[in-house]
């Protein structure tokens, strides 16, 4: 599945050392790759390292990207995912699809000092980030790729190397868990929501 942005991709020029071609791709995708890495790891330096590694693969091996297999976003996210999982494993985290929160990778979301005017919004944002970070890794990645990176089910399946049905199931579980955790903050049709219907 390709977007109109895909027309701008010229990996031949990148292989030949065309700076403009690389800059163009970097400017289109860095934010989403970095966002994926940050939300997965909850750590800015690690997210920057992962983003660096993902684009480094494109610099060194531009021919590994095959447009017929998926979009550039899918390619970069798949590389970033490998780096993230390598990062997790190096720290001894278990990567599974367990429902048990204790076995999942819970990452610490760094807090920042903000003006008082934005304190409430910031608190809410931190709560959301924390709730996402507490999800099991495999559920977290599909949720981030869908809700924040806006990839389709097929693209997510390509990134994680799984079936579309598995992606749907993980996404469903992730949303159920999040809805429970964030229920006090959710407003549905002007009313506070304390439980996800149909759960």
């Amino acid at each position: 599945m390709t977007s109109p942005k895909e027309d701008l991709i010229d990996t031949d020029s990148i292989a030949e050392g065309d700076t403009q071609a690389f800059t163009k791709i970097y400017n289109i995708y860095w934010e989403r790759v970095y966002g994926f890495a940050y939300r997965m790891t909850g750590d800015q330096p690690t997210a920057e390292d992962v983003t660096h590694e993902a684009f480094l693969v494109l610099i060194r091996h531009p021919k590994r990207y095959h447009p017929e297999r998926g979009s550039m976003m899918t390619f970069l996210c798949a590389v970033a995912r490998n780096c993230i999982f390598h990062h997790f494993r190096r720290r001894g985290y278990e990567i599974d699809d367990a429902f048990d929160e204790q076995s999942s990778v819970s990452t610490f979301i760094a807090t920042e000092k903000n003006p008082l005017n934005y304190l409430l919004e910031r608190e809410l944002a931190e709560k959301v980030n924390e709730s996402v970070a507490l999800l099991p890794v495999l559920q977290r990645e599909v949720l981030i790729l869908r809700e924040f990176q806006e990839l389709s089910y097929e693209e997510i399946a390509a990134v994680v190397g799984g079936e579309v049905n598995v992606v749907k199931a993980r996404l469903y579980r992730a949303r159920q868990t999040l809805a429970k955790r964030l229920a006090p903050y959710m407003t549905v049709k002007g009313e506070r929501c304390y439980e996800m219907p149909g759960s």
Partner: protein
Amino acid sequence: MKCQEVRLRLEAFHDRAADAELNSRIAEHLEGCSSCDGALAQLRALRTLLLKSSIPAPSAALARGLMEAFHQEHKQTAKTIPWWRKAFGSSITVPAPALAAAMIVIAIGIAAANIIGRNAAIASLSDATSAVSTSVPPPPSISPEIIERTKFVEVPVVEERVVTKVIYVERENKNIQTEKLKSSDSKQKSPNNKGRENSEMQTAANPDLKMSGEVAENGYFTRTDLSGFRPESVIKAKIIREGKNDEK
């Protein structure tokens, strides 16, 4: 469509992953079912909430580091992209026979121009030849006093399967070498007095570098004693891909 069926497909509807027919059927059901409509509203509320979370911007070092890596990668392999490719894009291809014919025509043109130009130059220079003596300047000689040695330091990076080779160059002049010889002699005579100096000199002169490997939390590191060496102005990397060496 029953509520149970709708609930199973509600996420696909919400994520715009359902086909047109299913979309219309679900939309039709939602108009008359407040319960399912409420479930959809929950999904939308969750998405709205999630999008309120922000992340810190990366440092400028990210872009800078990548551009440096890009330039480093293409330092030697970069080709100048022809103007016609920049102007018309990379999709234009020139047929091989046409390209060959054009090359032959250009070569003949250059040869003809050379012959004509040479004859004219010979005619114009024939008078001046006797007066001006052409002298070719000697090539710049390398100072015999400086001896260069190249040392390779291999730093394996496990994740990348890349072996980086940094070339360190030791510059010594003959005077230092002479001092070394002297200090070696003095070591034999009085090892206690010159012990430290001798050990440093020996390290610098030793062709085999002392290296030790270490497995740490963040990966594998190699420690190397580089005393007596200094990096060359241009650091070269040697990347090994599937057993083939690529000098970069």
